[in-house]
């Protein structure tokens, strides 16, 4: 079997390649023997292999639309006859290896023979053994190499084909027949047949919406799109012109009956076009030539391929990292990356699946759900003025009557809770691996403790649960007005209305009709109903999000005003209006029980508007007592089916939607932009538009993938399955182009586009990597507030009200805002990380704040002497490198209690000089008046052979050696202590290399570079080495920043907005310390810092004697404003 280089995952391609397994009629067969066979242990083998190919083609020419059977036929070695055997097959496409599994699907294979698995086992070996390999379609043009093997029972050797069989398919150009068909279709079919008859059913949302033939309503490009629909219909195995003509003329079990008369002019016109399309199909088949060529050299073959195949996929570990940052904010550990690198695609699948849990993933799902449903744009999801939720009403009443602001105290939190519930529901379904349809059919909603209490939820929360903890719960405290007794009068606190108080309750609604997202308060509120809108907005977005029907776009054609001036109930009677309303209005009717205030029959009877029931002009109303829906509208339902329920209409609608095949494809489209960063391509509608062909090709490719992902979702209803396969696909993993002919289509499809991180993802990534929760705080009252949200649009996000589409590509303003944020983040990130103990740090695990490139050794020592004459020695062993070093002794903690004229007490450090002692006993002493000694700083005096240091003074001796030397540096010191200070005088000895800071190799410079390597891996997801130019460049930045810090003469960081990190204090202080450092403001809205405590605490954090913190701030600022940080 072939050995392989590292391959990327790509089951996707082969799944596409196989297509649907459907019935077929075999017409021709070919058999081809492999050139040779071999045994894996090097022994001789007489085994022989052949491939047998059968297809519907009788000419030996194949199309990607024809069904194939490929079987392996082999003759085993004679002594193996009657033994059981395992059979193997490997297909190579685009240099990637795929292993055939027992379920006849492919999985990428790493070429390791130890991981080779059979697709068939217990095969009894006969003189000629035949095993079915593949049954299906080859829908992807390109080149396929097929290797086969078997392994007999109790035989160690594997018998295999060392040379592959090569199957080559080439695509055809559009034929003249297709062009003629287009001309005739435009003139004879589009208006008179398709737009006037077929489209009544064969249209999005129509009765025949799930048939293989679906047309587009009239618009500028509809003729071409509809012709393509006919062509695609004919390409489906088993379909033909005759099939379609039969159905159109009422035969073949056509549910739509007779639409054209056999033998009539329309029939002839349709037949003419269909025959031309069949001829086109045949021409395409002619252009697709297959060859069975054992041993064909790949390099000799030029084959066309597809936009998806013409790419190189990213390594598995890169895929894991992107997914991890995207869905959980954190970078995978080195162990996790190694596991997927060394494993196979299933290892990656498992790792991806493993990301789909936990609070960060929940936040991701909540964010994605909001980007689709826009529930954050809801104005008033839970209106506390209504008495239906008595606890909520009385909370409002009691709060106002207590003289407090209801909105400030509870309203905000309740609203936030209500609009988050939709995303929490989707997250609950996905994380719990519940049937995805439960997002609509859930007979519960998600509640946090607040909602649970005031809505009478059934969840049981632990006492520690907060506003972001959600559990499924059912509403049990919803009442119709007759079941309540309320105060007679509205009451006021001063001029503020408190409203009615609920005095007592009787029987709550027994079975609150939850229906997942459809009854979500945020969803209902975001798309409110009015007396004339009549739930149509709710219906529109229900159809859009959950069935993929854009009802406005489905009728994108000119209307004349006369047709719209029709006042005879036009939505029912005017065909111009009914086109959409036939689909829209029944769904609107399913929302019949939900009022404009999102309440379930808030009056206890219905949710019909007042104007309908009691017309303002006094005219008679169609309303009859007991009605739940408008008599002048279509009955509640979905498509052609009317709902049977009166009370739980949305529950019934939800279950019907979930049974529609389009629910699955809509689910894929719901998640597409979240995973791939761009909206899916919309079917272009104007043929003459520039880029029409490329958009069409991109659309077709995406639709094929949408269908494939939908099938995955449909298998088990498990959204994780779908999300994993989406991330395994080239749409997520494409890394670079291997060919250029598809560039225009790839651009239209945004294939492999890096995902510009949205505000929430940028926030999560930054928090996880740096620990900085930028401008995000939780007030003492428990309300979380974040500038990421306030600045959402500026950061490329949405506001859910006006700006509804996330930016996928940077603009200068987005970058400017990102850079401002990251510049602000860099300082608290560095300061905080260095303030933590080594085990708690996120970033700086290889260096501390004293590590600078040239520093070879250093030590700070207590000088306990109490008189100038009381000399003592402190020692620092070190190694002087060949490039030389300077030795510095400095006063680490000068102190002066200054009264304006003199120091009342002070610390003083005295020096007699330094000695260098070798292990041999040789010693060299430098007195303070030696010519090699330099003293720098203020208030530093040399007095003969001694020196007196009053402030930050230092002495330096520079050494040049011919070879490295191990020595002990001895400083001769004494001191005067400051009696009121407990800390003794301290002196620091530093040994600093005199090498070129950019090229010198010291332990510290190596540690700094290794730290840079680690940061690049974490922040950019790239593996670099300490010798790489990239690290050299960043190290150069470090050096420049270090030198700038040194030149500033400052020993501390003087501009650092640490307070913009909402976690800064809580990460660095214990709860007890935190209580001393800050306290709640009087209104509980913010924290009041106590600087008598924080001032001294802050000093060491901001101290930067070596300049290294400022250098790392520069490095972080660089990394976090880089393209690779803000994209994944």
């Amino acid at each position, binding site marked *: 079997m072939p050995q392989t280089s590292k391959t990327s995952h790509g089951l996707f391609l082969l799944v596409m390649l196989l297509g649907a397994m459907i019935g077929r009629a075999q017409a021709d067969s070919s058999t081809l023997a492999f050139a040779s066979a071999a045994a894996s242990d090097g022994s001789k083998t007489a085994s022989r292999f052949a491939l047998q190919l059968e297809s519907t083609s009788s000419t030996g020419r194949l199309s990607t639309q024809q069904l194939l059977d490929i079987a392996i036929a082999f003759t085993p070695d004679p002594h193996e006859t009657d033994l059981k055997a395992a059979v193997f097959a490997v297909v190579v496409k685009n240099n990637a290896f795929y292993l055939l599994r027992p379920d006849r699907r492919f999985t990428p294979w790493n070429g390791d023979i130890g991981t080779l698995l059979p697709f068939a086992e217990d095969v009894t070996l006969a003189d000629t053994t035949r095993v079915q390999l593949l049954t299906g379609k080859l829908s992807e043009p390109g080149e396929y190499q097929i290797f086969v093997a078997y392994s007999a029972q109790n035989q160690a050797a594997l018998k295999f084909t060392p040379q592959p069989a090569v199957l080559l398919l080439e695509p055809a150009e559009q034929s003249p027949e297709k062009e003629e068909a287009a001309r005739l279709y435009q003139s004879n079919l589009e208006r008179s047949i398709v737009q006037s008859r077929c489209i009544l059913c064969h249209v999005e949302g129509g009765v025949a919406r799930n048939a293989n033939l679906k047309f587009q309503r009239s618009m500028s490009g509809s003729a071409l799109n509809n012709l393509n629909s006919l062509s695609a219909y004919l390409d489906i195995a088993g379909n033909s012109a005759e099939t379609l003509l039969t159905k159109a003329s009422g035969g073949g079990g056509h549910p739509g009956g007779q639409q054209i008369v056999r033998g009539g002019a329309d029939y002839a016109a349709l037949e003419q076009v269909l025959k031309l399309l069949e001829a086109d199909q045949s021409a395409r088949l002619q252009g697709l030539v297959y060859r069975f060529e054992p041993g064909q050299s790949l390099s000799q073959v030029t084959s066309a391929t597809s936009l998806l195949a013409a790419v190189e996929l990213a390594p598995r570990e890169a895929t894991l990292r992107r997914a991890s940052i995207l869905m959980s904010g954190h970078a995978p550990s080195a162990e996790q990356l190694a596991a997927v690198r060394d494993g196979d695609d299933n290892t990656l699948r498992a790792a991806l699946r493993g990301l789909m849990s936990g609070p960060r993933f929940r936040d991701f799902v909540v964010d994605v759900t909001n980007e689709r449903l826009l529930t954050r744009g809801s104005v008033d999801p839970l209106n506390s003025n209504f008495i239906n939720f008595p606890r909520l009403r009385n909370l409002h009443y009691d709060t106002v009557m207590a003289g407090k602001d209801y909105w400030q105290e509870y309203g905000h939190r309740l609203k936030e809770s209500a609009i988050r519930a939709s995303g929490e529901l989707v997250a609950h379904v996905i994380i719990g691996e519940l049937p995805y349809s439960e997002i609509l059919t859930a007979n519960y909603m998600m509640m946090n403790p607040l909602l649970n209490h005031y809505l009478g939820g059934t969840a049981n929360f632990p006492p520690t649960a907060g506003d972001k903890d959600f559990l499924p719960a059912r509403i049990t405290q919803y009442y119709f007005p007759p079941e309540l007794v309320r105060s007679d009068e509205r009451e006021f606190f001063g001029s503020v209305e408190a409203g009615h108080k609920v005095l007592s309750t009787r029987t709550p609604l027994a079975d609150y009709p939850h229906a997942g997202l459809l009854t979500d308060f945020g969803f209902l509120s975001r798309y409110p109903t009015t*007396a004339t809108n009549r739930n149509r907005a709710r219906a529109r977005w229900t159809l859009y999000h959950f069935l993929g029907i854009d009802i406005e776009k489905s009728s994108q054609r000119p209307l004349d005003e006369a047709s719209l001036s029709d006042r005879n109930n036009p939505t029912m009677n005017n065909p111009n209006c009914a086109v959409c309303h036939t689909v829209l209005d029944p769904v609107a009717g399913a929302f019949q029980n939900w009022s404009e205030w999102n309440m379930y029959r808030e009056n206890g009877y219905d949710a019909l*508007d007042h104007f309908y029931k009691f017309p303002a002009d006094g005219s008679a109303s169609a309303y009859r007592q007991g009605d739940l829906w408008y008599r002048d509208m279509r009955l509640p339902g979905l498509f052609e089916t009317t709902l049977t329920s009166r009370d739980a209409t949305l529950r019934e609608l939800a279950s019907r939607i979930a049974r529609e095949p389009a629910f699955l494809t809509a689910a894929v489209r719901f998640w597409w932009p979240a995973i791939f960063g*761009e909206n899916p391509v919309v079917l272009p509608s104007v043929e003459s538009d520039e880029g029409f062909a490329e958009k069409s090709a991109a659309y077709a490719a995406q639709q094929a993938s949408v269908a494939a992902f939908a099938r995955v979702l449909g298998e088990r209803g498990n959204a994780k399955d779908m999300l994993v396969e989406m991330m395994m696909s080239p749409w997520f993993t494409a890394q670079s182009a291997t060919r250029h002919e598809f560039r225009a289509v790839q651009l239209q499809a945004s294939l492999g586009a890096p995902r510009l991180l949205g505000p929430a993802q940028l926030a999560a990534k930054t928090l996880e990597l740096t620990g900085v929760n930028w401008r995000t705080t939780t007030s003492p009252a428990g309300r979380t507030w974040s500038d990421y949200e306030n600045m959402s649009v500026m950061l490329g996000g949405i506001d859910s*009200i*006006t700006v509804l589409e996330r930016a996928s590509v940077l603009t*200068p*303003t987005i*970058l400017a805002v990102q850079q401002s944020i990251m510049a602000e983040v860099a300082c608290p990130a560095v300061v905080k990380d260095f303030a933590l103990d080594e085990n708690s740090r996120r970033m700086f695990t290889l260096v501390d704040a004293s590590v600078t490139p040239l520093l070879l050794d250093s030590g700070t020592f207590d000088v306990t002497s109490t008189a100038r004459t009381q000399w003592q020695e402190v020692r620092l062993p070190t190694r002087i490198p060949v490039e030389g070093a*300077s030795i510095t002794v400095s006063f680490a903690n000068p102190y002066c209690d200054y009264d304006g004229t003199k120091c009342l007490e002070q610390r003083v450090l005295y020096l007699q000089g330094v000695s260098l002692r070798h292990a041999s006993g040789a010693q060299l002493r430098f007195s303070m008046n030696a010519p090699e000694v330099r003293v720098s700083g203020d208030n530093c005096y040399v007095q003969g052979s001694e020196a007196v240091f009053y402030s930050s003074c230092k002495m330096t001796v520079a050494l040049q050696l011919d070879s490295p030397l191990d020595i002990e540096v001895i400083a001769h010191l004494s001191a005067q202590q400051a009696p009121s200070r407990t800390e003794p005088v301290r002196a620091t000895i530093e040994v600093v290399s005199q090498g070129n800071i950019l090229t010198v190799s010291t332990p510290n410079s190596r540690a700094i570079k290794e730290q840079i390597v680690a940061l690049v891996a974490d922040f950019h997801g790239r593996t670099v080495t300490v010798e790489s130019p990239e690290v050299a460049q960043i190290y150069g930045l470090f050096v420049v920043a270090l030198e700038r810090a040194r030149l500033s003469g400052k020993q501390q960081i003087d501009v650092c907005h640490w307070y913009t990190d909402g976690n800064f204090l809580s990460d660095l202080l214990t709860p007890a310390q935190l209580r001393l450092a800050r306290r709640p403001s009087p209104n509980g809205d913010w924290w009041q810092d106590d600087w008598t405590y924080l001032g001294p605490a802050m000093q060491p954090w901001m101290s930067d004697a070596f300049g290294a913190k400022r250098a790392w701030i520069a490095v972080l600022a660089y990394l976090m404003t880089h393209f690779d940080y803000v994209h994944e």
Partner: protein
Amino acid sequence: MVKNRRQFLNSLLIAGAAMAHPRLVLANEPAPFSGKFVLTLQARGGWDVTCFCDPKENQPGLAPITQWSTSERTQTAGGIVYAPFAKNREFFERHHRALLVINGVDAQTNAHSIGETANWSGRLADGYPSLTALYAAANAPQLPMAYLSFGAWSKAAALLRPTMLGHSVTQMRGFMLAGRDDQGQALVDPTVWSLIRKMHVDDTQSMLADDTLLPARNRSMDAYLQALKSSEALSRFAESLPSNTEFQALSRGNQLINQVHFALLAFKAGVSVSADLVDGGYDTHANNDAQQATLLGKLTDAIDYLWRSAEQLGIAERILLVVGSDFSRTPHYNSGNGKDHWPVGSYLVMEKGAPFTNRMIGKTDERQNALSLDLSTLNPAARGNIKLNPAHVQKALRRYLNLDTASVTRAFPLINTEQVDFFS
């Protein structure tokens, strides 16, 4: 050794300092833009022009079309007739000399998304850019915020990327001062910050040299590079912006005024040439008059503010403003005193000192049906050549702004549409 090291570092630092002046290392700056500034103001949801610029009075025997006409009559300001409603009198009296009203424009749809598409791109189908996108792409695509949008219908058909701005535009000052806080203090040493920018430019150019980059990745990197090159210009612009508090005081709750103010300052600073302003809420299916009065009042306040501010900034003569909506509202009230969707609406086109202003073109009958026009006179004619639709207006605007011959427009022809001479 020490000396050598210092020399080396100094050379690095000198290099870093040079980066503080982007002209030395970044793209050439083109000549300042000296043409018109084009704005659209989009009344999202469908405004009621019978209460505004296409006034309708109730007719005997017919259902009421406007409530204001029960007690008042249509008013005139110069060559403009208007409804005595909301703050219209003040607005039309003050601005009629700079105003062209185009009435009777049939959007040919009653669906919001398609109405917006038609009104702002000139055709019903997706795929065409807005007038403002075309204008920016044709005239100044290199500017950092060439095309501003505040959430309006601002499709750009890949010609360029609109700068999308939300309500937090009032906080922009504090977030565009590259590497500095809102007080101007450096968060990262300025020399180091310049070096970082230089490194980013170099990194990105190097990555873009890879010919195996997928085109979408190439597009993203190029956007990053262009954004980097714009940061100094944006930083200078940010310094001219009011603080958040000043913005709030200025607008007093009318977000449109913040949008106007920001756009004008961006024009003045030379970082933008076109903008789409937007206000929502016009979809008044219930309680039409009260809601339209509030909204139209905000709208006219904002337009008034626009012209006054533009005068103060010295750019009023360079402004072209187009005001419109998805469509209009039914010529009758529904049972909730609201009005539903009606395809026949209007545009306002405003420009100081232009020859085409202080007049009205297009006409509707008493039930707000569009009347046919004689193409040569633009007067209603029983056998007129045309009924106006958004394509006519957009096509004429393209010609007026010299976009019809611009290369960027070639891919977006408005075919089968007569050239109407609104602007002579």
